[in-house]
């Protein structure tokens, strides 16, 4: 089946290495280029210093463009934040929020990004108010549909209604594949056990997730099993039960312009343990999706207490999987 789906990486995936300066921006981009993931996404406030409080780091932006040129990669998305609680105990005004988003549109444009990612908590009115500014800059603002939210949640319905009403093509969605979490991640379970959850309670919660049981029932079970702090915390992850259906993306495909290839654990067989990428990619092909799937490794925070985070190896495994699912020839750097 023909398709135009492209592979990319969010540098978020390498956060443990960049935090400790084990990898530089150039190391990250070279790694992506080597594995044929030529689309690069960044969290602006992670990969660049000072932004937005101090202003645009012009030298770093120039370096970014030089790296794109050098490695044959291209900008895909700048994930922006909008800290509307910058002042303690005070919500940023509507006008200031709009102004702040416009600055991130400028920042995205300076990086050559076709898209910027809005966090799901931003209200639709703010984004609608920025739509024509974004259009002028050739930027699409994509709200990240992220668990516990999903395409049928009333908050997202409200966004969808506002976008359709605006008539602007500059507003769209960036679904995070974490909302299709069809199994309880093994790395989560192991971490909760290290945090003190008894094995039989961890097993019960994992099974209840598998059975799609309403979180409230599982919390009652855990309390009746004598579960305390860490056990209740593990059960509460089910409040954010996120085993939604990939096919629900189809109705919204005309506004989907980027995808977070969220993953928690790529096994040695190059399979994500909890997220059904075969089903996801089939839906994306069916819907004629033409953007990137950008790796977003988030197993890091679940394993870092017990082992060294293997960001690069995990990303490579995901791209071996994506090459397989997207019928791509595997670059040399991905071959075992």
């Amino acid at each position, binding site marked *: 089946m023909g398709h135009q789906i492209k592979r990319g990486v969010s540098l*978020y995936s390498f*956060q*443990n290495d*960049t*935090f*400790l*300066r084990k990898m530089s921006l150039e190391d990250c981009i070279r790694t992506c280029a080597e594995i044929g993931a030529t689309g690069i996404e960044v*969290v602006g*406030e*992670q*990969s660049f*210093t*000072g*932004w937005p*409080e*101090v202003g645009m780091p012009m030298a770093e932006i120039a370096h970014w463009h030089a790296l794109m040129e050098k490695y044959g990669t291209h900008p895909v998305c700048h994930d922006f*934040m*909008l*800290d*509307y*609680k*910058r*002042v*303690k105990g005070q919500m940023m005004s509507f006008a200031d929020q709009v102004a702040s988003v416009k600055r991130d549109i400028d920042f995205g444009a300076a990086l050559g990004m076709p898209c910027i990612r809005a*966090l*799901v*908590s931003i209200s639709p009115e703010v984004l609608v108010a920025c739509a024509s500014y974004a259009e002028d800059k050739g930027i699409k603002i994509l709200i990240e549909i992220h668990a516990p939210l999903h395409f049928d949640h009333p908050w997202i319905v409200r966004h969808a209604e506002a976008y359709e009403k605006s008539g602007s093509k500059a507003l769209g969605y960036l679904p995070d594949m974490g909302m299709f979490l069809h199994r309880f991640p093994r790395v989560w379970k192991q971490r909760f056990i290290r945090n003190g959850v008894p094995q039989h309670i961890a097993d019960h919660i994992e099974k209840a997730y598998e059975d799609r049981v309403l979180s409230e029932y599982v919390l009652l079970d855990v309390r009746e099993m004598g579960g305390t702090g860490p056990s209740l915390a593990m059960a509460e992850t089910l409040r954010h039960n996120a085993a939604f259906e990939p096919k629900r993306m189809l109705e919204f495909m005309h506004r989907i312009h980027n995808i977070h290839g969220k993953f928690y654990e790529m096994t040695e067989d190059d399979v994500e343990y909890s997220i059904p990428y075969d089903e996801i990619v089939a839906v994306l092909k069916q819907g004629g999706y033409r953007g990137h799937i950008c790796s977003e490794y988030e197993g*890091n*925070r679940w394993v*870092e*207490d017990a082992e060294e985070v293997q960001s690069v190896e995990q990303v490579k495994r995901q791209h071996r999987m994506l090459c397989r699912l997207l019928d791509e020839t595997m670059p040399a750097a991905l071959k075992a």
Partner: protein
Amino acid sequence: MMDQHMLCDDGFENVVRNGQTTGFALQARLPYYRGLGLSMVEDIAITVDGQAVAREAVRLSLRGRSWSLDEMERCFDEKWNFGEKARVEVAQPGGLTAGDHHVDIAIRYRVSYLPFVPTTRTGRPLTLAA
């Protein structure tokens, strides 16, 4: 996340000014996946050998500028960048004795889109240079 990297092994030392030991310092990183504007760092609580340090005794410095914790909450033009080591100074006349001390740190930071205000903690023995 990044909990165990909040405390750095280097930079744990006494602060000497005009020949007087006025306190001690350590280096810390913000335990988050991006930088934060200083106004969103609500507290940095330090405990040494089980003794908590008063909030008023703590100052944070970055690239030659420094703030008390109250000043930091009103600072809107600087940022504790991702992975950046900040120097945390604690006013304590006489400083600490050379050798090992158990240091605990807890950073509370406000993240606009989180439905709670996280506090991240870590602690371990650090060696103060003589």
